[in-house]
C-alpha cells in the first residue's frame, strides 16, 4: 500500500520534471463544460455566457464578486422610477473597426429575445422593457412598473454589432462570420467537441488581455481533466474535482484558485400534500405528511451535521449555509447563521411533533448536477437515519431528475417529498432565490417557478413583491433580508452549504475566482 502511495507521488513528481513547452503568450485551457454555441443570445447557459462575455461586451459587467461595474455603459441611473438612463462608452470599436453606438444596443434589444430555436432565451431579462435612443451614446429603458433590477438585467446579455448581426443566424455566429464583438478576445475557430480558439483584441478598450492566443479544449471527465493538467497538455483547468484538491495543493508545480460561488445547496420539502408519496410511517404504512410540521423540518435541519458534510464529503471545499446566499451579496441577512448540529434536540422535536419513533423518508437527488451531489444525499440519509427518520436514497441523472422533481406527479405537480437541489443566483442578489424558490407558486405571475416544495407564506410573498418594486437600494436590501429571515426561520427550505469552486493552473498563473462560476480567460493572469 505504501508502495502505491509512492507510485502516486512519483506520478506527480515526474509530471513536474516535464518541460513546459509553450510560448509565453499562448494559453491552453481544459474546460469541463463546452459552450453550445458562439451566438451570444442563443442559449442562456453559464459556459456560453462566459465565452460571450470575452468576445462581446455587456452594458454592465459584473466583476468576480458579481458587483456591477461599467462595461459598454459608463454610468446608469433611474431618471424616474420607471425610466433608467444608460450613458454609453465612447471610442469603442468592434473587432472589424466599426464604432460602437446606441444603435447597436437597440439592435441587440431586438435580437436577443428573438433567436430562432433558442433553448433558453434571454427574453427573461428583456420582456416588459422598451428602449429609446436619446443620442448616439445615451439610451433610456422604460418599464411599466418600477424596476430596481435594471442594471442587473443589463449585465446578463452581450451587445452585438448591428452591422454584422442583421439577419445573422446562430450558424453564422458559430462559423465566425457574425461573431464580431467589442470584447477582449476575437473569435478564431470552433470545432465542437474538440477545440475553440480565440486571439487577443489588441484594440480592446479595457485592460489589455494577457494572452495572444487561447486554445480551449473541452475535457468533461474530472480525472481526465486533472491528468491533462498534470501531463502538461493544458496550463489551466476549471471545475477541479474536490477529491483531487488536497493532492494538487501539495504539488509545487501547480497553483489553485478558489472562491465561494453564488450557489446554495439546499433541501426542499413537500409542504402542499397531506399525503406525501415518499413519507411513510415507521412500519411502511401511510402517515400524515410529517414535513408539513415545522418541528419536523427543524428536527431535520438540526440532525444535519453541516460541518461534517463540508469536511468529509466536500473535502473542506464548501461553506456551511444558513441562508440563500453567502455573506457579501446584496440582500443577505446579518442575523442568520448555519443551524448547529444537535441530534438530541432533533429527537426531542420529533417527539414533540408526535413522532418519537421517527418515520420513513426518501431523499431524491441528482447525481451529475452539483459537486458531489449523490454523496451529499447519502450523508444526509445517514444523519437522518441516526435520529430515527429511516431515510432511503434515490439519486438519478439530472435528465430524469428535474422533470420528476418539477412536474412528475399527478397534474404536473412535483413528484418527490424530500429533495436535494441547488440554486445559483444569476442576478447576484437575494431576490433571485426568494422569487423562484420561496414565493408561493403562481404560474400566471411567474413566481415560485422552482418552488418544488410548494412552500407558501403570505408574509414572505408580500415582502418579496414589495422588494421587487423598490428602487431604493437601502430599502430593498432590508426587505430582502427580512424576507429571507422569515422564510428560513420557517424552514421553507433547509440550506446546507454554499459551493466553493476551484480552478487549477500551472505555477505562475492564478485565477480571479468568480462567484458566478464562470471561467474567463481575461481572469487568468500571471501571479
Amino acid at each position, binding site marked *: 500500500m505504501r508502495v502505491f502511495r509512492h507510485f502516486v507521488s512519483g506520478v506527480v513528481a515526474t509530471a513536474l520534471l516535464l518541460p513546459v513547452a509553450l510560448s509565453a503568450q499562448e494559453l491552453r485551457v481544459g474546460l469541463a463544460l463546452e459552450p453550445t454555441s458562439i451566438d451570444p443570445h442563443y442559449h442562456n447557459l453559464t459556459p456560453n455566457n462566459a465565452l460571450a462575455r470575452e468576445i462581446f461586451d455587456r452594458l454592465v459587467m459584473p466583476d468576480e464578486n458579481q458587483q456591477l461595474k461599467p462595461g459598454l455603459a459608463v454610468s446608469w441611473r433611474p431618471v424616474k422610477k420607471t425610466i433608467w438612463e444608460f450613458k454609453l462608452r465612447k471610442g469603442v470599436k468592434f473587432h472589424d473597426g466599426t464604432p460602437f453606438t446606441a444603435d447597436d444596443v437597440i439592435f441587440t434589444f431586438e435580437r436577443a429575445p428573438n433567436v430562432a430555436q433558442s433553448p433558453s432565451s434571454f427574453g427573461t431579462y428583456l420582456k416588459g422593457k422598451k428602449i429609446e435612443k436619446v443620442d448616439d451614446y445615451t439610451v433610456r429603458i422604460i418599464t411599466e412598473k418600477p424596476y430596481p433590477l435594471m442594471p442587473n438585467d443589463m449585465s446578463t446579455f452581450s451587445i452585438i454589432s448591428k452591422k454584422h448581426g442583421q439577419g445573422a443566424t446562430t450558424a453564422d455566429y458559430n462559423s465566425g462570420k457574425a461573431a464580431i464583438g467589442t470584447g477582449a478576445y476575437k473569435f478564431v475557430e470552433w470545432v465542437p467537441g474538440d477545440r475553440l480558439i480565440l486571439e487577443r483584441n489588441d484594440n480592446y478598450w479595457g485592460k489589455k488581455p494577457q494572452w495572444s492566443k487561447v486554445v480551449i479544449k473541452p475535457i468533461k471527465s*474530472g480525472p481526465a481533466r486533472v491528468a491533462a493538467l498534470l501531463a502538461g497538455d493544458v496550463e489551466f483547468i476549471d471545475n477541479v474535482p474536490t*477529491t483531487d484538491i488536497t*493532492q494538487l495543493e501539495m504539488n509545487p508545480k501547480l497553483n489553485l484558485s478558489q472562491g465561494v460561488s453564488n450557489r446554495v445547496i439546499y433541501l426542499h420539502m413537500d409542504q402542499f400534500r397531506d399525503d406525501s408519496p415518499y413519507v411513510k410511517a415507521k412500519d411502511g404504512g401511510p402517515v400524515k405528511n410529517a414535513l408539513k410540521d415545522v418541528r419536523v423540518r427543524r428536527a431535520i435541519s438540526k440532525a444535519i451535521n453541516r460541518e461534517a458534510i463540508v469536511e468529509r464529503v466536500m473535502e473542506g471545499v464548501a461553506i456551511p449555509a444558513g441562508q440563500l446566499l453567502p455573506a457579501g451579496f446584496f440582500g443577505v441577512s446579518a442575523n442568520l447563521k448555519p443551524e448547529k448540529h444537535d441530534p438530541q434536540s432533533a429527537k426531542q422535536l420529533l417527539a414533540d411533533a408526535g413522532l418519537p419513533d421517527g418515520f420513513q423518508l426518501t431523499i431524491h437527488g441528482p447525481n451529475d448536477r452539483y459537486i458531489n451531489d449523490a454523496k451529499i444525499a447519502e450523508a444526509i440519509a*445517514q444523519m437522518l437515519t441516526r435520529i430515527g427518520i429511516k431515510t432511503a*436514497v434515490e439519486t438519478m441523472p439530472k435528465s430524469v431528475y428535474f422533470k420528476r422533481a418539477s412536474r412528475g406527479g399527478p397534474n404536473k405537480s412535483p413528484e418527490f417529498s424530500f429533495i436535494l437541489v441547488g440554486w445559483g443566483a444569476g442576478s447576484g442578489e437575494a431576490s433571485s432565490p426568494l422569487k423562484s424558490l420561496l414565493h408561493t407558486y403562481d404560474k400566471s405571475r411567474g413566481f415560485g417557478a422552482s418552488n418544488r416544495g410548494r412552500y407558501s407564506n403570505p408574509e414572505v410573498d408580500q415582502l418579496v413583491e414589495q422588494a421587487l418594486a423598490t428602487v431604493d437600494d437601502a430599502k430593498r436590501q432590508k426587505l430582502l433580508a427580512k424576507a429571507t429571515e422569515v422564510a428560513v426561520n420557517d424552514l421553507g427550505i433547509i440550506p446546507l452549504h454554499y459551493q466553493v469552486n476551484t480552478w487549477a493552473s500551472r505555477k505562475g498563473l492564478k485565477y480571479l475566482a468568480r462567484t458566478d462560476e464562470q471561467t474567463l480567460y481575461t481572469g487568468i493572469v500571471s501571479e
Partner: protein
Amino acid sequence: MTTSVQQISVPAGAPTEAAAVKVQTPFRRFLSDFFESGTAIAAFTVLLVIIFIAVVAPLISPTNPYDLAIVTVLDNRLPPGTRNLDGMTFWLGTDGAGRDLLSAIFYGLRTSLWVGVMSGLIALCIGGTIGLIAAYFGGRTDTLIMRIVDLQLSFPAILIALVLLAVLGKGVDKIIIALVAVQWAYYARTVRASALVERNKEYIEAAICLALGHRRIVFRHLLPNCLAPLIVVGTLQTAHAISLEATLSFLGVGLPITEPSLGLLIANGFEYMLSGRYWISFFPGVALLVTIVSINLVGDQLRDVLNPRLQR
C-alpha cells in the same frame, strides 16, 4: 451470417491424450476432464471461495455497509488499517461514504454475482426457449425470430442498457431486466445453432413419428442435447454481465449508491484515483478482476471439455 457464429461459439478444444481406460459415467469423465488442468482447479477453487463469501457475506462482514444508521461520513476516506473512535478497524480502509471497504466488497460481491447470475439465468431461459422454438419449427418462425435476434445483436448492448435504465430507474431488479434484455439474443442464437444440428438427428425424427407433443419434444429431447454450449456461453456471459454492470455504473445508471456492487464501488472510487486514495477503487477492482477472471477460466475449461467435436 448465423452459420459463422456456430463455428465461433463452439470452437475446438484441446486434443488430449488417450482417454482413461476405466469405464466411466459421462459425469465422472466430465469431472476428470475438467480437473485435468491446474489452472482450472485453481480457478474453480477461487470461484467457490468467492461464491461462499457472497453467500455468507452478512455473517462474515465486520459491519453492514448498507445500513445507513451505522455508516457515517465521519469515517470516510480512511486509509487501510485505520481504527476509528469506536475502536473499529478498517482493514481495507473506507470509501467516500464511510463504508468499511472489506464489508462493502463482500456485500458488493454478493450484489454483483446476484446481478450476473440472475440476469444470465433469466436470459438463458428466455433466449434458450426462443432459440429452441426457432430451430424446431424452422421456416418462417425461424426467419422471423432470427431477424429479431439479429436486430437485437446488431444494436450495441451498452446503448440499449443505457436507454432502458434511464427509463426504468435504479435498482437491482431493474439492472437485471436491462441485462436480460441485452443478453437473451446471445443465448437464442447459441441454442438455435446447436439445436439445428440436433433437430435433423434420428431421435428427434423418431420422437416426431411417435407424435409426441411439441413441448415434450423440445424440452425433453432437444434441450438436454443442446445444454453444453449453453452452459459455456452462460458462464462467459455472466462474467460479461458483471463487467457491463460496472461500466453502466461508471456512466451513472444502474444501482442505488447506498447499496453498491463491486462495479459501483470501483466507479465511485474512480474519482479518487489521482488523489492518492488508491484503496477506494483498487481493492474492489482486484475483487472484480479475480471474480471475472476465475469465471472466465472456468468457462474456458468448460468449453474445452464440453466441446462436442471432441468426443473421446
